[in-house]
Every structure is written in C-alpha cells, then in structure tokens.
C-alpha cells in the first residue's frame, strides 16, 4: 500500500467513513506494519482529544447586540432604494385601468388576423409557417415540379428529375445563419438511394426510415436520389426550419 492510500484510509477510519472493505484492508495492513498501526492510533487519539475540547458559551451581550444590529430599518427585504430604484418602483407601481388591457388585446387580435390573411394570399400552394428576421415572398409552385424558397433567411430552389424509376431531388440553397430541411416520404412506396453534395460550406445528412434531414449553412447544392418500389406516384413532404422553428413546408406528388 502506498503512503497516499494509507493516509487516506487512516483519515477515513478515524472519521468513521471507511467502507467495511477499506476498514478490513487497513487493519490487515496495520497488523503487518506496526508503524502504520501506531500512526492510526495516534490519529485516533488526536481526533478524540480534539472532540474533548470544551465548548465555550458566548458572552451574554452578543445576542442583544445582534438584535440591536438588525433593527427594523435593516431588513433583508427592505433596503433604502437608490434614486433609480425609487423611480423604477414608482413606474412599476403604476396600474393602468382595465379598459387599457382590453383595448390592447383587441389591437393584437386585429393585427394577427390581418397578418395571417395577408400571408395566405402570398403563399399559394406552399405554406409559410412563420418568419424569423428574413423577407418572405411567395414560393411559386412551377408546373415542371420545382419550387422556390425564400423565407426567414433561407433562399433557393428545389427541382425534380425522373429517370428510369428514379427520382432525383436537386436542392440549391443559401442560408447564412443555417437551416434544417427534412424530407418525409412513404418508405413502403419509395426508398432513399443516395446523397451527393455538389458543393457546400457546411452540410450534413441524417437518414431515418421515411425521413431524410439535411443540416445546412452557407451556400450549397446537393442531389438526393429516391427509387420507386411500389406505386408510380408518391408524395414527398418538405419542411424548412430556421433557428429550430418550422418556417415553410411544401408537399409534392411525384412524378
């Protein structure tokens, strides 16, 4: 046993925190090494002597002095406020009449309704879910099966090609702050074949049965290939996330 372990076990034995196994180990070692036994006995005796040091009563005046020291003006909650605090507390104490709350609620509801109907007009077949700091324009659905994305800091084009039972999805996207794109599909109808990045700053791909997820940042274009296994037509559902929030979704029936 090295010194460090011996000292640790003696320490713990004296303070009663050794496990049974540690205690047995220590006593076995001590039975073979008298100097270790002596060290253990000394530390035990020191600990006992320290515990025998008598407790001393504090002078009686202390209590009264402490009570005087914590007079009501020095409460843990009530502090003398500074000028800023006094101004702030008077502002915080102001309570507007209930009619003001009702008026504010009406304004908010009207704004939300107007906002929503305006977006419904803009979006067309695609659906803008929300915006985060970026300009939102209508994502037109082209008859040749492609669509544009321009929402919440994500812009680009998604196009489709069909070739001998394969469907190729070409994405060309720009997102300075980063975005996530998920493509949901029916795994009984099609299967995911391959992912080919043409170029890209930072792109990664996760695949699950029925879902492909791209994490994208900067400028990038890539091709994702699917093969039809059951029906000639199948749906692909695209969802675009910015800062973790769903901002745009689009469904396509292919081919």
């Amino acid at each position, binding site marked *: 046993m090295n010194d460090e372990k011996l000292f640790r076990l003696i320490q713990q034995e004296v303070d009663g925190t050794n496990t049974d196994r540690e205690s047995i180990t220590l006593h076995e070692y001590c039975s073979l090494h008298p100097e270790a036994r002596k060290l253990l006995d000394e530390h035990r005796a020191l600990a006992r002597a320290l515990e025998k040091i008598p407790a001393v009563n*504090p002078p009686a005046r202390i209590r009264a002095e402490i009570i005087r020291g914590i007079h009501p003006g020095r409460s843990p909650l009530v502090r003398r406020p500074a000028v800023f605090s006094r101004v702030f507390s008077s502002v915080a104490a102001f309570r507007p009449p209930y009619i003001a709350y009702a008026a504010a609620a009406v304004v908010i509801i009207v704004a939300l309704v107007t906002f929503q109907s305006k977006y419904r007009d803009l979006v067309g077949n695609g659906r803008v879910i929300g915006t985060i700091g970026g300009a939102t324009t209508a994502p037109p659905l082209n008859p040749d099966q492609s669509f544009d994305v321009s929402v919440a800091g994500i812009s680009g084009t998604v196009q489709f090609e069909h070739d001998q039972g394969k469907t190729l999805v070409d994405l060309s996207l720009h997102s300075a702050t980063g975005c996530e794109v998920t493509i949901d599909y029916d795994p009984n109808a099609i299967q995911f074949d391959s992912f080919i990045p043409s170029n890209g700053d930072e792109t990664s791909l996760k695949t699950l049965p029925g879902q492909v997820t791209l994490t994208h940042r900067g400028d990038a274009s890539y091709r994702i290939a699917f093969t039809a296994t059951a029906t000639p037509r199948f749906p692909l559902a695209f969802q675009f996330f910015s800062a973790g929030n769903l901002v745009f979704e689009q469904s396509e029936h292919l081919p």
Partner: protein
Amino acid sequence: MNDREDATLVADCLNGNRQSFETLLDRYQKLVFNLALRIVNDRDEAADVTQTVFIKAYENLHRFNPRYKFYSWIYRIATNESLNIVKARKPVEALSDELESSDLAPDALLGILEDSRLMEEALGRLTPENRAVVVLCHVNGLSYREIGDVLEISEKKVKSRLFSARKQLKTLLLKLRS
C-alpha cells in the same frame, strides 16, 4: 439540526417575521462563536466575529440558496470572517522545517493528549487553513462534503488537509510539551 425547519425559518424571516431570525440566532450563536473562537483564538475577537456574521447573514438572507443547508452558509461566513482576522495579524510563530523534521519521542503523545489546554494552544498555532478544517470537523462535526462546501474546496482536498493538520498538530504538541 433540522434543515427543513431552518429553511422554513429563513422563508418566514424573508416574509418579514423577525422572530424567526432570532430563533436561528439562538440555534447557531454558540456554534458560530466556538468556530470563530477556535480559529481566531481570542474571546473578544470571536464575539465580534459572531456579531458580524449574524448581521451579515440577516442583511444578505435573500441571497441564501435554500437548496443548501443554512448552517453551511452561516459557517462559511463565519470561517471567512475569522480567517480574514487571522490573516491580517502578524505571523506569530510559523511552523519551521526544523520542527517538522524534529525527532521528538512520539510515544510521549498519548500522555500529552489528556491536557486539553495544551491541545487548545497547539490548535491555535496551526496554519489558519488547517485550523479551519480541524475546527469544522471536530468542533462543529461537519462531514468532509460539508467542510468542502464551507471552504469551497474539494472533498479530496479536505481529507488531505485534515490529515496534514493532525500531523502538524502532533508535532506542535510534542514541541510545546518539550
């Protein structure tokens, strides 16, 4: 001590019930005073420390985190106050290397330990950090973990400091006796 009861008393006090603080004061006054006394080794200074500790605790009660034990918090204030006083003093007699390596008869130790006055003197000559660990362990009966919380050091450091403190204490006792 009932930790839950302490937490209730603290909450009552924060709600404006000053009587609750007086209950905490009665509960911990003697323990804080003895902790301070064993570290500063002077009754008057220990009384001053005790007074300062409770007034500081009262004024900063809103900062106390009820996830921790009240006594750990108040002992921390008391230990820091006491160590500040000790460190501000001129060093009296540092433990020299010569003393560390002295070869005094170790068998004499067991007899010396019966003399609690000698023990108190030796305790007062430990380094302040070692003194704080020994007092918190043997006078206030805190666990390694609680001592670590009070002194803001790891349990491992508490153990090693306690071991070296006892070793230093033994040397001091033998030296004082001789």
